[in-house]
């Protein structure tokens, strides 16, 4: 229930709309009948027991699942009202608009500077001043600038895990994405970096839409405006979206008994 001066309005625009989505890995039916509207410039958290399809669902938003043979999505996923699975959509462009952060930080084996400048260079930015500017701004937004401003030439992989994760965030931010997907971004890093990442999320949501998968329910409660709870009720059956609501409602007065049982630790 991220503390903010004004809560996201009920009529805030939807950034991503999902309608009746089913997802399959070959014969395995992983998700069924998911319908959800993701609000623009808000933080939305996905919670649920491990294996219930949170990462799978997240990867539907930037078509990362396309890379898995036999994987198949049915239903509608749209970004700003446009179906992202339409034939005309370029997945590479889509992944620029919708960046992704993974559980394990994965900086490229190059300098801190080059990591952040990588995307802008691909987009054709080549002037040093322009690159310097975007590198600094992105590192500032990623809450890492102060720690690395004097060592920009050093290898990204020499940083601590938590710093590497923030470097990856800076790398994503450098191409000005509209949405940032974060799949358990804090699971493998130190508490100070966790704090810094939670802080930067709060600052970033003035500009972008964030979706975070987290197994840490306190984190979901702290950082998100909306929370979606997923559950695979019977092993082998597809998972469903049990409840989706404002985080402040879901963590105080959940409407579904299964949500209640999960968040209060009665199972899972």
């Amino acid at each position: 229930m991220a503390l903010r001066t004004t809560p996201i309005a009920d009529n805030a625009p939807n950034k991503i709309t999902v309608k009746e989505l089913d997802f399959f890995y070959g014969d395995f039916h992983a998700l069924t009948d998911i319908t959800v509207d993701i609000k623009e410039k808000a933080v939305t958290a996905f919670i649920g027991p491990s294996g219930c399809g949170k990462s799978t669902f997240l990867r539907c938003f930037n078509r990362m699942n396309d890379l898995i043979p036999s994987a198949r999505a049915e239903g509608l996923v749209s970004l700003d009202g446009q179906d992202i699975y339409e034939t005309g959509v370029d997945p590479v462009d889509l992944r620029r608009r919708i960046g992704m952060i993974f559980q394990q930080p994965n900086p490229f084996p190059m300098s801190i500077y080059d990591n952040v400048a990588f995307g802008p260079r691909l987009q054709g930015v080549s002037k040093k001043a322009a690159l310097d500017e975007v590198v600094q701004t992105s590192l500032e937004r990623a809450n890492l600038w102060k720690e690395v401003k004097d060592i920009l030439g050093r290898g990204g992989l020499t940083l601590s895990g938590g710093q590497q994760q923030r470097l990856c965030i800076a790398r994503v931010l450098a191409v000005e994405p509209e949405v940032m997907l974060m799949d358990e971004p804090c699971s493998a890093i130190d508490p100070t970096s966790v704090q810094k990442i939670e802080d930067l999320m709060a600052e970033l949501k003035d500009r972008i839409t964030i979706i975070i998968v987290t197994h840490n329910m306190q984190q979901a409660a702290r950082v998100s405006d909306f929370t979606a709870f997923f559950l695979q009720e019977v092993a082998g059956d597809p998972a469903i979206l049990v409840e989706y609501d404002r985080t402040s409602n879901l963590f105080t007065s959940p409407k579904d008994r299964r949500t209640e049982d999960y968040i209060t630790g009665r199972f899972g």
Partner: protein
Amino acid sequence: MREAFRQELKDLKAEVVSIGKGVTDRTRDAVTSLVTGDVDLAEKVVAGDEEIDRRTLAVEEHSIEVIATQFPVARDLRLLHSLTYIALHYERMADLAVNIARAAKRTAGRRGPQTLYDLIQAQGNLVYRVLDATCEALETRDVELARKLQDLDEPIDHLYKQFFRELARLQDEEDIEWASSMVLASRYLERIADNAVDIGERIAYLVTGEFEALHSPDEETS
């Protein structure tokens, strides 16, 4: 870990129910001391207040500790927060019972018209019922009973008003200090019942998760 947490919630709730029962007993003793002029009983009620204060504080401290360490959510959070809220209400009700006991001490040497004692006793009997209902509704998570507290409160307000009318009929030679002490006692009983209605609303919230429209007490009469 979670099991121990569950047990703590249960213990804390049992403690608040027990405080509620203690307040019911004290209210009963206070009214009895007033109606029968029993100074010793009134003294006992006054002396017992410290215990309720201490136990209420302990509930609050314990609940803050659990919130800080266990991150309760949903029904657990509603329960913990509501228990503190309810305990504080009970504590205030115990203070009101003490005020009634003080009135008993002030008036013990004198004897006024029996009708007024009867009215206070009748009002007291209704208040015990309301208090019992708060304890039972909390113990059993009974939303219907919790919501009924408002209805149970109504006749108590009526008796308070009737008390005023009876008082107006008193002759000039009646003892003014006696009369005003009795009015205050009736007023305290009415306030105890108002607190009980608040507790009822809180119990409904902790069970349903919905805040229901808060009742506003009748216009202040004194």
